[in-house]
């Protein structure tokens, strides 16, 4: 699966961050959608299933880990990359245990994120 075919969902309550990151990814030709809360993310996933979800751990309302748990139960083939502001926290480790593909620290470098997406998509693709 080529990276441009990967269907990406970006979930973060920080709109400025999410929108800008989405725009930058779009500029690079990636297929990316945004959700600004956990609830919205679940709706979007229901309407169109993404290949990779990039999701902040800390959000008001539904937490990243809750969604991760839900996704792994319903759609295990969707790869999740967690974003966190806190390095080495339990959240990150917990997420990994729950089956997240990886976790990245904010602020992040776009190239590193893209590389991770490619890896995740490759695994997801095999899974399909």
């Amino acid at each position: 699966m080529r990276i441009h075919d990967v269907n990406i969902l970006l979930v973060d309550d920080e709109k400025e961050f999410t929108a800008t990151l989405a725009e930058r990814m779009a500029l690079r030709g990636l297929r990316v959608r945004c959700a600004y809360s956990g609830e919205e993310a679940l709706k979007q996933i229901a309407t169109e299933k993404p290949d990779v979800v990039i999701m902040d751990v800390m959000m008001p309302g539904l937490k990243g880990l809750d969604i991760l748990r839900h996704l792994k139960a319903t759609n295990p083939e969707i790869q999740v990359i967690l974003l966190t502001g806190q390095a080495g926290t339990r959240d990150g480790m917990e997420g990994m245990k729950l089956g997240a593909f990886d976790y990245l620290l904010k602020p992040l470098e776009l190239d590193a994120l893209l590389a991770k997406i490619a890896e995740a998509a490759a695994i997801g693709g095999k899974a399909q």
Partner: protein
Amino acid sequence: MFRKVFSRHLEGLSSSDVVVTPRIYRSLRRKITALMLITATLPLAIMAALNYYEYQKALSREIQNPLRVIVNKAKNSFELFLAERTSAVGFIAQAYTFKELADDKDLARILKILQTEYVGFVDIGLINDKGELVNYVGPYALKGHNYAEQTWFNEVRVKGRYISDVFMGFRKFPHVVVAVRHTLDSGEPFIVRATLDTHQFDKIIVAMGLEPGSDALLLNRAGILQTSSQRFGKVLDTFSLPMPPPTFEATVLQQQDAEGEDIFLAYTYFPESDFVLAAIKPKAQMLRTWYTVRGDLVFIFCAGVLAVFVASYKITDLLLRRMREAEEQRELALRQVEHAQKLSSIGRLAAGVAHEINNPLAVINEKTGLMRDLIDLREDFPDKERYLQLIDSVLKTVIRCRDITRRMLGFARRLDVSLEELDLNDVLQETSGFLTQEALHRKIELSLTLDANAPRIVSDRGQLQQVFLNILNNALAAVPDAGRIDVCTRGDGEGVCVEVRDNGCGMSKDTLTCIFEPFFTTKKTKGTGLGLSITYGIVKRLGGEISVESEVDKGTVFTLCFPKHPKHEA
């Protein structure tokens, strides 16, 4: 009552909330020592005083008794001597007729027999009822002398017997007169009078066996000496002391002599005659034994008090040292808990701050990234290079901020320690490898003395690296160029200890107490003040201990000990 005293004075011992200061220790020491001294020496002193007086009394009695016995014996000797002489004279008066006694030859014969049988007779005379000396044999030419007017003559006529006081007689010898009355069948009385020299008195006194310095003498009731003495004068001198009250029992008085010296005066009055026998013994001489005993007593008492003092002082010392140690340990524990709490609260704060800052940083990062993307896409963007430079600089700054927040998070995070069995020596070698370049450059000697037998320990390699990097970096900062840093390891059954010793600038006491505090730094603008506090946190998390000793201008030693297995962390 004791309980009250104890509780009042020793309240410092039990109140654990009060921080015990040296001043309180001093006053406690005083109080405990005083209390122990009093409780120990008071009974001792009372015992000593009681012993002193009882013993003195007993000894005094012991000393006086023999004196009393001697005086009694001597008195008996005197009485026997006088009674013998008197009865001899009485025998003569009764055994011979007046006619026989009036005969010169007979009387001379009688005197001769007397002088043979009884020592001390000097002369003998016969006196008729009118007081005329009818016959006389002896050294004086007294025949015809009339005694009718003399008191003794009347006394012997009434009482039948008379013993005179001592007087100076023939050849300046002291003499005593013995006179006995006898009544003829015709009813006419006559008197036999004999003179004795008192040489025998001296003999009796010598027989008393008094020690030198003591004195014995015979007095009459008027206080005139009847015998010579060593210290109270010759015969017929007046006794220098007042006459003691009359008693026929041997009695001992304690008094002072004319020179003010303490003496024992043992004396007794004679019931049959006017004599008084006295023995004088200086008290000092008699009490010599007592003084020895008293010296012993005083010595033992003083030694006892001294021993009690030393013992109580030592015990108090020990007690207080234990107390102080316990207090210090408690304080240390409190400080550690406090420190740990401070670290953890600062950690939570730092985590919160870092997290809050990371989100805006992420926004800046993305916005700026987007700006660069957009400018990159436009070939004809004016001043493109300049803008790209500016944007890069912003991005670099974001990275710098991110590093800072990550460090703060690193300080705060609950570590996911990845434990593995490792050789601490390897870690040290690896870590010091990072610094050899700088050391070489500054001509600093960085030596590793590694204990090859040190056991392998279970710990986190990365964390250990951070710890040693921190410590070694500090050491490098502290030593001058061409300085020296020694790292040595020591292993035992429990784990491994690492000692990092430098000969750098050292630290003051004040600095030492703060170095593990977060945000404490001596590097002014260059440091975050987190290095050693992170180090401290990591070492603690790995179950280890870290301690530091330092002396200004001499250097600093960090000692880190790690157990073979980290204890279960909270």
